[in-house]
């Protein structure tokens, strides 16, 4: 086991948080959305673009050197700047890189963010709607997939769900609990894309996408962006908002592949989480709220196990206990998550985790007395993972 540097614990803080309009935002590009979120984060922090000297973002894959285009639109020259391409693990990885850059004198104040136009892109034409594909054609598989009718990230994750059900007796009822609970959270969030309740009866009556997944097992297609600003704890003291402490982070990448070993059932969240806990000096029992990368219901269940909130194979019982609800043992995806708020590849989980640590929400949305939030990022062909542990500043 790698021993992460403890000197990074509480060294930096999130001092600005922002998101774009969420849901269906036609006529606005992914670049426009991330710039909108970053402007909101700057306003929130009381900072000007000239105060920023770092940009770390994930771009839409077809934009070359995306961070440069972001800097151009915000009028920023950056000492430290790059585009991160670990898919949904990129957003927390950006924060981790920001902390390391700040600690080593490469930057003082770093903007991290991501935006995507997945709703607009998949609804541009009827063909686009049916294919429901967000990747550019050049990135789609050419063999060992299309000839078998194997399409979509839903199917890739559904392989894990099938295997987990086979090994541990996990059921659709368990997946449904996650979808229903997160929808209930979304109803507390005025910005959420989904506005109507979801019952377990409706969940079971859903149309099939790729079994075992149905419509409500799958995250939303959204136009959405989020951003955070990271700076040193020292500098944070002079800024407008109460700082949110970055207590620990970790990454792990099962780069041998989702189909190798047991990676679809014991995900990279396990080692990523162990590293984050070690840096923070904390464990799963210390976590008050979790914001888990919920591209599909199954991914929430298996990550809760991998993070040690319950044992491997017991995720079904854990979610069935009501643990994920507001007031439960571990209120999870309290914004509604990617299943019901909006899907922006994990950046909105980062935004929500940080906001929960500020305690500025109305009581209906605030996890009571929450001191520690865990945020997860998952992506990069399903095997890149990142974990962030945030704390309320005292």
């Amino acid at each position, binding site marked *: 086991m790698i021993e992460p540097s403890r000197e990074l614990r509480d060294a930096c803080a999130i001092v600005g948080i922002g998101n774009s309009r969420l849901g269906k935002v036609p006529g606005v590009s992914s670049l426009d959305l991330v710039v909108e979120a970053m402007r909101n984060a700057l306003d929130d922090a009381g900072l000007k673009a000239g105060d920023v000297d770092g940009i770390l973002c994930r771009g839409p894959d077809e934009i070359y050197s995306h961070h440069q285009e972001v800097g151009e639109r915000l009028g920023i020259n950056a000492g430290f700047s790059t585009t991160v391409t670990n898919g949904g693990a990129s957003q927390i990885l950006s924060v981790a890189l920001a902390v390391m850059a700040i600690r080593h004198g490469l930057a003082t104040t770093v903007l991290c963010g991501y935006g995507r136009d997945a709703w607009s892109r998949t609804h541009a034409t009827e063909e686009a709607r*049916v294919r429901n594909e967000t990747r550019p054609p050049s990135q789609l598989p050419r*063999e060992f997939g299309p000839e078998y*009718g194997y399409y979509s990230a839903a199917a890739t994750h559904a392989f894990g769900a099938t295997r987990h059900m086979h090994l541990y007796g996990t059921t659709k009822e368990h997946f449904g609990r996650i979808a229903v609970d997160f929808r209930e959270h979304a109803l507390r969030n005025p910005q959420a894309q989904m506005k109507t309740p979801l019952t377990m009866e409706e969940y079971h009556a859903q149309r099939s996408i790729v*079994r075992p997944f149905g419509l409500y097992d799958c995250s939303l297609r959204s136009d959405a962006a989020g951003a955070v600003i990271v700076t040193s704890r020292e500098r944070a003291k002079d800024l407008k908002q109460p700082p949110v402490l970055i207590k620990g982070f970790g990454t792990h990448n099962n780069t041998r592949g989702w*189909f190798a070993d047991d990676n679809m059932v014991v995900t990279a969240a396990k080692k990523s989480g162990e590293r984050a806990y070690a840096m923070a000096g904390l464990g799963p029992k210390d976590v008050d709220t979790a914001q888990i990368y919920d591209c599909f219901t199954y991914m929430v269940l298996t990550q809760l196990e991998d993070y040690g909130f319950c044992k491997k194979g017991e995720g079904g019982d854990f979610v069935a206990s009501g643990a994920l609800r507001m007031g439960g043992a571990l209120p999870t995806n309290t914004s509604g998550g990617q299943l019901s708020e909006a899907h922006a590849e994990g950046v909105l989980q980062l935004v929500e985790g940080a906001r929960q640590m500020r305690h500025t929400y109305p009581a209906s949305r605030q996890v009571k007395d929450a001191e520690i939030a865990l945020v997860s990022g998952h992506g990069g062909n399903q095997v890149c993972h990142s974990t962030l542990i945030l704390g309320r500043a005292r």
Partner: protein
Amino acid sequence: MTEAAKSTPRKPLPRPAPESLPYWEAAKHHRLEIPHCDDCGGHWFPPSRSCPHCLSANVGFKPVSGRGKVFSFVIYDRVYHPAFEAEVPYVVALVELDEGPRLISNIVDIAPDKVRCDMRVSVVFDDVAEGVSVPKFKPA
């Protein structure tokens, strides 16, 4: 050709990467051959030009048994590509060969609802176009 046949889109054919060409050439002759390392004896999939077990470049393709088990699977009810409209529901599986490597395929000759993880399967070949045959698996 009938009007109906003309209007039915064709299923995508594999568009092999250069390192995969021997795999598809063997499949054309109804043989399942996968990469093999002449130094460490390891197998792997998908094809690449060096051995991921020992990094040797002393590699080639060797026939395998064509037997294995279903590691996991999914069932398509929704049509993602119009050529598969007549196929739904159909099964896409990750098949673990007895030699170790896992590959994506279809499970055929069985009702989708009857497919289970770890069930034994063996290879069959589907001649999908002139000179193109795709390995699929049926219950063993």
